[in-house]
């Protein structure tokens, strides 16, 4: 056998192992849960009766499911722009600092590497009513009214979004910083010589050149927010996604249906629908945002 053929066979052999792993651990369960969405399995009995599209029809009649979809889209709509805009701003500011840049970067990354459950519980305590809640105490000192935060059906979801944005900032700041440092200084200097002011440099050079990173972060952060679970489970009363389902995202709905109500059919159906939503949002973002910019 020629050396080239040997190399090709070796390559495919090595690729086969992770491929096998991927098929068994990722692909097969995914297909299995697609199939489960067409059954009425209750997790305990061995009977899985095929019921066609009945789950899909019934699930949209469930008010809680519809609320969960709306909540999930709210998480993305509030969270992704917030995290990208704030982290871009922080990265631009950090990029101008010479001293202590490493220290500030560490400070911003720390929330991201702290265990999410610990973060959730500390924020839950901070959101408490006065005089226990730190945030409300601050508001009171500033002369403002105390807010119910997690105890209000209108404020609970934004409160959780704030916590999540705070966590994800570090990751996005680091990625943006890396991106900013790849912008060739010659472009900026040439623009300055041509008389461009700071705002023009930012909007005409820096941000367009950062476009691939913006797309990357928009897509990955959207997926993260669409799959939000840990914070909601820990920051709401008994992980119920309350009050009155105002914070319940799809993943929590799935968890409750599967492991509290033992309704695996409905849970699998919701999983398939969530998969569809993530797929659509990802594709839309990649098509709209992806512009090839070269100077």
């Amino acid at each position, binding site marked *: 056998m020629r050396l080239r053929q040997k190399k090709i066979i070796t390559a495919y052999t090595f690729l086969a192992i992770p491929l096998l792993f991927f098929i068994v651990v990722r692909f097969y369960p995914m297909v299995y849960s697609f199939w489960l969405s067409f059954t009425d399995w*209750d*997790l*305990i*009995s*061995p*009977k899985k009766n095929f019921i066609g599209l009945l789950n899909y029809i019934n699930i949209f009649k469930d008010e809680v499911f519809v609320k969960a979809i709306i909540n999930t889209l709210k998480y993305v709509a509030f969270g992704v722009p917030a995290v990208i805009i704030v982290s871009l701003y922080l990265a631009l500011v950090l990029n101008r600092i010479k001293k202590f840049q490493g220290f500030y970067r560490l400070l911003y990354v720390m929330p991201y590497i702290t265990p999410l459950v610990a973060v959730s519980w500390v924020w*839950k*305590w901070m959101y*408490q*009513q*006065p*005089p*226990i809640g730190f945030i409300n105490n601050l508001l*009171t000192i500033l002369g403002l009214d*105390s807010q119910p935060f*997690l*105890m*209000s*059906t209108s404020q609970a979801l934004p409160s959780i979004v704030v916590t999540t944005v705070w966590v994800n900032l570090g990751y996005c700041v680091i990625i943006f910083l890396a991106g900013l440092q790849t912008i060739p200084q010659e472009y900026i200097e040439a623009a300055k010589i041509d008389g461009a002011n700071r705002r023009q440099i930012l909007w005409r050079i820096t941000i367009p050149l950062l476009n691939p990173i913006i797309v990357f972060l928009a897509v990955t952060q959207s997926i993260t927010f669409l799959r939000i679970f840990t914070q909601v489970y820990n920051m709401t*009363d*008994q992980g*119920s996604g*309350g*009050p*009155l389902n105002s914070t319940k995202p799809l993943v929590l709905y799935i968890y*409750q249906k599967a*492991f*509290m*109500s*033992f309704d695996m059919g409905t849970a699998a159906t919701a999983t398939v629908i969530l998969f569809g939503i993530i797929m659509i949002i990802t594709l839309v973002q990649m098509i709209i945002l992806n512009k090839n910019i070269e100077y």
Partner: protein
Amino acid sequence: MKRFFVMLVLLAVILTSFAFAAKTKITYWQYFYETKKNTIDQLIKEFERQYPDIEVEHVTFPYANYNQKVASSIPAGVGPDVINLYYGWIPKYVTSGYLIPLPEDVFSKEYLQSQFFSFVSKGVEFNGKYYALPIAVRSLALFWNKKLFEKAGLDPEKPPTTLQELVEYAKKLTVYDKKGNIVQEGLTMQPSGQGHHWIREVLVREFGGVPYTSDARTVLYDKTGAGSDVLKFYTDLITVDRVGYPGFMNDDVTAFKAQKAAMTIDGSFRIGTLNKIKGLDWGVAELPSYLGVKSNFASFWANGITTNATKDPKKLEAAIKFIKFLSSPESMKLWLKNVGELPANPELAKQYFDDPVYGAFLRGLEYAHATFFVDESAQRQVMMDAVDKVVLKGIAPEIAWKEAAEEEQKVLDNFWSSVH
């Protein structure tokens, strides 16, 4: 020839003795709780001493998600012969074909009704058959903080005995800061804790109603007794009397442990936790009555036999013996001593009526009810939502109560339609 014969007989004896010495092995699953695990180990030793041909393997799982772990191991085909489960899961486990009915010759109606409180036989019964037996049961009582009573000028040895007194005392015991925020609750208000049980089985009945029909198929709390007055009583404590609110100090247990709540309604399972808090001087009394009516909510974990055990008649026999042993008065005595859970046997329970800690709970067992839950988390959510609707959204209690009944009826209907 003679030697050959002798060898043959010897061989036969050895082989048959193997058959006799082969022990029947059964597996027992329960959730991990240190005192429970150690007590079961002790009981198993005693059981194996009484029945030398049976060996019991004891496996425990972390409490959180015990139900999920058990449920997911069943389709995987790994499972115990005897299982410890929350009585509220019995309907689900039975309709999934996982539990077998307890053999009627050993566990007859008379046996159950004489050896256990009446709510036990109701709680383990499904479609006319009994499915599990408890060692111990839990009930609710009123816990109060004696130091905080003194501070408020109340007699620390005299807790409230009626609902009217409860409200009065709670108002005196609530402390506010300058801005009017609660810094100390007079009474914890946590529907997601034991609050929903207090509403459903205690207040509904004390207000003259009944929560469900006796076959557990129809919701009656909106159609009987004082209807939505029950919800109004509960939510008024939050919105009008302002003695506490859901989520204060995160939850009722934390608030009481931190001595930021003067009274709380909680279960006997809280005793161990409270005993560990230094400086917490607490008392416990029977739940306050209303218009002379007393009621209580009891719950329990029980031991049932799975279909696994039926694969071998010897295993089944061993499982039956084990369950009977676990629910014997001797086991219950040891359980009370080590675990602090109340005996499920009424005669045994009477012996401890004057105990300063257990007395209130045990006396409560005499008039307690165990709700037939088809989906406890969903039914709990219904009550949590009803309270939230009134407190957070200002919806009238009549409407919230009716919606709760409709919501819960859907949960029940869903379950019962899937049974047939």
